[in-house]
């Protein structure tokens, strides 16, 4: 029981980080048909912006969080205006966009390497403070930071998607871009908002990943595979699905360590993915295309 609770706490922590990354990746794919391989590096950049603010400049962690959010959101918007929008207007297909995003991923990573070197960094948080609510159950300070921050933000995003007109418009665009356009939705504006959302969530995920473990120029790239799995698990293009998919994946990976070697936990994520897709090819929340 205690082992189960401990692995669940670990799973929620990494699952929350996957979920934050997966929502933006899924929305951007759903709306723009862009498989954004640079999304992982958006996260890494968020981590390094936080490092610059929190460690290099010695400011509080909260300021670092906000700075990462703003910088990565701004990058998302800038790339939309400078690259993605012109590419779409020229009729670029899914494959061209995908390849371009891989190129972009390497450019961002190398700029990070150039600026901050490849050294392993960490943020200024107490890694060792922990509580012992009962028995052998342990929860660390950084897990509290990750779970609480991600929890609040994820609930906020879910409410935004569910109840605001902007959130509904994002889901409408993801469902059918042309129909949203003929319905009178200002699609260009909603696309920009989507980049703001995807960028700030990626930035936040990057900071939390840096808080939770350490930071290298590859942090986001390595997380990206699990995040893709979370997106597919939840139903490609479905933002709620990505949220749930991320948490399910994090839990499954950590629970698996109760029976098998922790080194295999990433593979476990993919076993879960394959099993779910065998039963529901459209993902947990995805719907079979009927039209």
């Amino acid at each position, binding site marked *: 029981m205690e082992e189960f609770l401990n692995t669940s706490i670990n799973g929620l922590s990494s699952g929350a980080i996957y979920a934050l990354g997966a929502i933006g990746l899924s929305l951007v794919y759903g709306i723009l048909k862009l498989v954004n391989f640079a999304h992982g590096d958006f996260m890494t950049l968020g981590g390094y912006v936080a490092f610059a603010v929190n460690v290099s400049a010695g400011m509080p962690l909260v300021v670092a969080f906000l700075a990462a959010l703003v910088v990565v959101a701004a990058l998302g918007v800038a790339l939309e205006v400078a690259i993605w929008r012109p590419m779409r207007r020229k009729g670029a297909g899914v494959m061209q966009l995908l390849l371009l995003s891989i190129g972009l991923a390497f450019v961002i990573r190398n700029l990070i390497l150039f600026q901050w070197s490849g050294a392993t960094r960490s943020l200024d948080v107490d890694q060792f403070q922990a509580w012992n609510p009962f028995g052998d159950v342990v929860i660390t300070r950084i897990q509290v930071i990750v779970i609480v921050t991600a929890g609040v933000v994820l609930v906020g995003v879910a409410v935004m998607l569910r109840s605001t*007109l902007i959130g*509904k*418009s994002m*889901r*409408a665009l*993801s*469902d*059918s871009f*042309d*129909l*949203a*356009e*003929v*319905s*009178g*939705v*200002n*699609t260009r504006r909603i696309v920009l908002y989507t980049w703001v959302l995807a960028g700030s969530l990626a930035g936040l995920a990057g900071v939390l990943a840096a808080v939770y473990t350490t930071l290298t120029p590859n942090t986001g790239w390595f997380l990206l595979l699990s995040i893709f799995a979370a997106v597919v698990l939840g139903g490609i293009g*479905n933002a709620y699905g990505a949220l749930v998919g991320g948490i399910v994946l994090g839990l499954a990976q950590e629970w698996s360590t109760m029976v098998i070697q922790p080194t295999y936990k990433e593979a476990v994520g993919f076993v879960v993915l394959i099993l779910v897709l065998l039963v529901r090819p459209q993902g947990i929340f995805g*719907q079979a295309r*009927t*039209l």
Partner: protein
Amino acid sequence: MSAAPVLVAQGLVGGYVPEVDILRGCTLTASDGEVVVVIGPNGAGKSTLAKAIFGLITLREGTVTLRGDDITGAAPHQVTSKGMSYVPQVANVFGSLTVQENLEIGGVLRRNLMRERMDAMMSLFPRLGERRRQRAGTLSGGERQMLAMARALMPDPSVLLLDEPSAGLAPRAVGEVFDTVAEINAAGVTIVMIEQNARRALALADRGYVLEGGQNRFEGPGPSLLTDPQVAELYLGGAGAGERPEPPPRVGS
């Protein structure tokens, strides 16, 4: 019938890829309060005409005006904001959104009228009221078509462009769609309707167009097209024969 023309599409030339013209000079006008029906064989360019009118494809030649305003090349949401709504032939509801959310998206341009229009749609389509919180993807074909029309009517348009609203529906649902179109028209909305149920649609029409190969082939008052021997021979399956059989399902539009 000498009402002012509301929608005028003149000499449209264009298509989906450079140098392949699907529309080759077709023309359409609709006057205030009219029901105008467009028929023609599969691949004639009927849906392409609708998309061209609505700014979804780029025209190489020709102009589209709405109440005298030039809307050639305007963005679709601008066309909607000028009072014309469009129900596409396929993918005409947001399947993952609820019925109510579909209507809210339809009403984004007229947020101040949202509640009022929503109530109006629920009384025009009571079945949608019962299914308010249901996802549109789970509706039956007939209900989905009703939702597509309701979504288009949310901004209170003066012109409604419908692309094959009865396609693929069960006979009873087909009847309901035509009744609803007549009701919407009776409330003063000008209707431009592309249809494959040619007899039924022409019977309802003030005027009809027969499109073939991206050009106007025949045009005239609805009933006279119905009795025109040539039209009957070519497009109504011969004089006295039944309606054109359902075309096989196709991918895309």
